[in-house]
Every structure is written in structure tokens, then in C-alpha cells.
């Protein structure tokens, strides 16, 4: 017996309407989930890992300078570099060659620019306000490293050294952070007392460490990736 219903819907129409009605929220949910997953890795795992790595690096203080009351980051050994790479690798799930271990959220080896900044100068431009002066403890004024595909390259003779150093106590040692993948060695640039409008400016008042890390994070499907960049800086305080 045929009995029309009051909605006037025909066979199959209900299904189509409901599929349309519910598919959109499901897609929205999935998109939120994908973005959240990326956010977790970018803003929690990577950011925390970089922050802890620079903190660990800045903790490698030259014992002579510490005893003298003018602590500097120790560049006479590779402890600082080792602390940075070790903590970063362990927190991001990388092996000793900086390649992602199974289960790591990274799709490839991260690219890193690391600057160890003491403000003390070995023959570089300095003035009498530099409270550290030529380091009597053998530390370099600056060391800059680039890590790509796990290869650590000393690029200390880059743009930072050429700019020299000036006063520590007046706070005019600014560093401009960008990440130019074509010229990664220019990612951390010494800009003296200027504040460029582009990029991020870090003012270093005490010896410390700055790092920029570019990483390719797996997307939620596991097949693609999204590139993200995070930076962190750590200074020695209390001197």
C-alpha cells in the first residue's frame, strides 16, 4: 500500500541529505585534528626541545670564568656543542647522526644554526665597555655552527664575526633571527644596536647561546610533511 509521508522526501533523498549534513562537520573535525597534531609538535615538542637544548648548551660554563665571577660559555671544549646536540636529539627522537628514529614526528634530519656568544673578543672589534674583554680563559668571542643532515660545520667566520662586538652592558648586542633556507648560515645575524623590522630581534646582555631549528614534521597522514622553524636563546645570568 502506498502512503506518502508528510516530508515529501523521496527514496534516497534522506540518505543524501544526512551524508551532506554530517560529512562537513567530520571534515572540519579531521582538519582540526590535523592542525592540532602539527601544533603539538611545533609548539610543544620542537619548541621545548630547542629551548632545553640551548639551556643545556649555555650551562656549559668555563670553570675559570665562573671562578672569576665573569662566567662565559666554554668554547675551549666541545661540551657546549655536545650538550646542544645531545639534548635536541634525545627530545626529538633522533639518532647520533641526527636522523629521525622510528616513532619520531620528524620526516627528516633537522637543520640547525647555533651561535655561542660570549661577547669577549679575541682581536675583534671591541671597546672599553666590554666587561669581558679578551677572554683570559681562552674562550672565543663567538662560535657559529651549522648542522645539516647531521654534519656539523663550523661557520664561525660568517657574518657575525665580521660585525664585531661592542658593549655588553648597554645592551646593544642585537641578533636578528630569520631562517633563509637558501642561505641558512645567515639565519642569525648580528645587527648591533639596530632593530630590523623583519624577523625576530634578540638582545643579548650576557654570554649565551642562540639556535634556530628548521624541521620537517610529518603530517597526520604520515606521508607528507610540513616545514616549521623555531628558535630559542639562553643567557647566563647572575654574574
Amino acid at each position, binding site marked *: *500500500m*502506498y*502512503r506518502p*509521508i508528510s*516530508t515529501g*522526501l*523521496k*527514496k*534516497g533523498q*534522506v*540518505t543524501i541529505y*544526512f*551524508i551532506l*549534513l*554530517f560529512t562537513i*562537520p*567530520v571534515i572540519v*573535525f*579531521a582538519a*582540526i*585534528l590535523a592542525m*592540532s*597534531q602539527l601544533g*603539538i609538535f611545533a609548539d*610543544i*615538542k620542537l619548541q*621545548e626541545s630547542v629551548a*632545553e637544548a640551548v*639551556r*643545556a648548551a649555555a*650551562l*656549559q*660554563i668555563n*670553570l675559570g670564568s*665562573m671562578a672569576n665571577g665573569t662566567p662565559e660559555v666554554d668554547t675551549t671544549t666541545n*661540551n657546549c656543542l*655536545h*650538550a646542544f646536540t*645531545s*639534548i635536541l636529539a*634525545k*627530545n626529538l627522537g633522533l639518532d647520533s647522526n641526527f636522523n629521525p628514529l622510528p616513532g619520531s614526528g620528524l620526516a627528516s634530519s633537522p637543520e640547525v644554526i647555533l651561535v655561542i656568544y660570549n661577547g669577549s673578543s679575541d682581536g675583534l672589534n671591541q671597546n672599553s665597555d666590554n666587561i669581558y674583554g679578551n677572554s683570559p680563559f681562552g674562550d672565543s668571542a663567538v662560535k657559529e655552527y651549522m648542522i645539516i643532515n647531521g654534519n656539523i660545520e663550523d661557520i664561525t667566520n660568517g657574518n657575525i664575526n665580521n660585525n664585531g662586538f661592542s658593549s655588553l652592558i648597554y645592551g646593544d648586542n642585537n641578533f636578528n633571527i630569520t631562517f633563509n633556507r637558501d642561505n641558512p648560515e645567515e639565519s642569525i645575524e648580528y645587527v648591533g644596536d639596530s632593530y630590523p623590522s623583519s624577523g625576530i630581534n634578540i638582545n643579548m646582555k650576557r654570554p649565551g647561546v642562540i639556535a634556530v631549528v628548521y624541521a620537517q614534521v610529518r603530517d597526520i597522514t604520515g606521508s607528507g610533511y610540513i616545514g616549521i622553524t623555531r628558535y630559542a636563546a639562553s643567557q647566563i645570568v647572575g654574574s
Partner: protein
Amino acid sequence: MKIRSGQVTIELIIAISLMAFLIFSVCDNFIIFMKYLEVQHYKFYYLQRMRVEGWLSDSDEHSMINQFNAIGCPIVSIGGPEQSGDDGDSNRVLYDPSSVDNSEISLNIVCMPNPQPFSPLSLIGGTQGNTIINVGGTMLSEYVPTN
């Protein structure tokens, strides 16, 4: 073609059931995801405490267990130097200025969300394993003995 009595209603029920199931699965996953987020934050907090203290103190351990229970993720295991460990004070990780490796302090937490997320595979005879959340991290200890 004629529509028989009740046919639209049946279609409606099937469509609603399927879509509700789909939405439930997404929400269920999202809840686990949010729990993972909370677990990460707690892990970071207690790892920072360990960095200063050189180990996971008894009070921190109890507090951490309570907080994980409160968010519905009871802790299954804790990996890292604990005050409650068998070796007493030797568990403590000290700041060693001459060795990075000696100063490293880690915390690894395995917890199991309760209730467990629904596994659609169980509907078709698949085995439903336990879902666990495993988080961890490493820092350098800054603890220096005071005496």
C-alpha cells in the same frame, strides 16, 4: 518506483546510525588527543622540577600520580631517577660541569587512558589492544649538593 511504507524511516535510521558512529569516533579520538596534550604538559612540568632537584622527589611523584588519575590517565610506569628508588641518594643526578652525559636527566611516563578509546576493528572481530600514551624528555640536571 513506489516507496513502500517505512522505507524512508529505515533509511533515516541507518543514515543517522552511521553518521553518529562516525562523529563519535572523531570525538573519541579528539578526547585522547587532548589527554595526550595534558600529559605532555605535566611531563614537562615534572621534568623541570627534576632538573632543579636532580630526581623525581616523593612528593612530586605522588602529586604527579594524582594529577594523572584526575585527567583519566592512570600511570602505568615511570622511568627516571626517583627518590623512592632502591639506591637512595645515589639515584640523584648531579650537575657535572665536566661531563654532559653525566648530567643528563630523563623522565619517561607511560599511562593508560581510562576509559579506553573505542576501536572500530572490534566490531568486525579484530582484537582491541590497550591504548597507551608514552611521553618522555631529557634535560641537564642543575642540582648541586649544598654540603
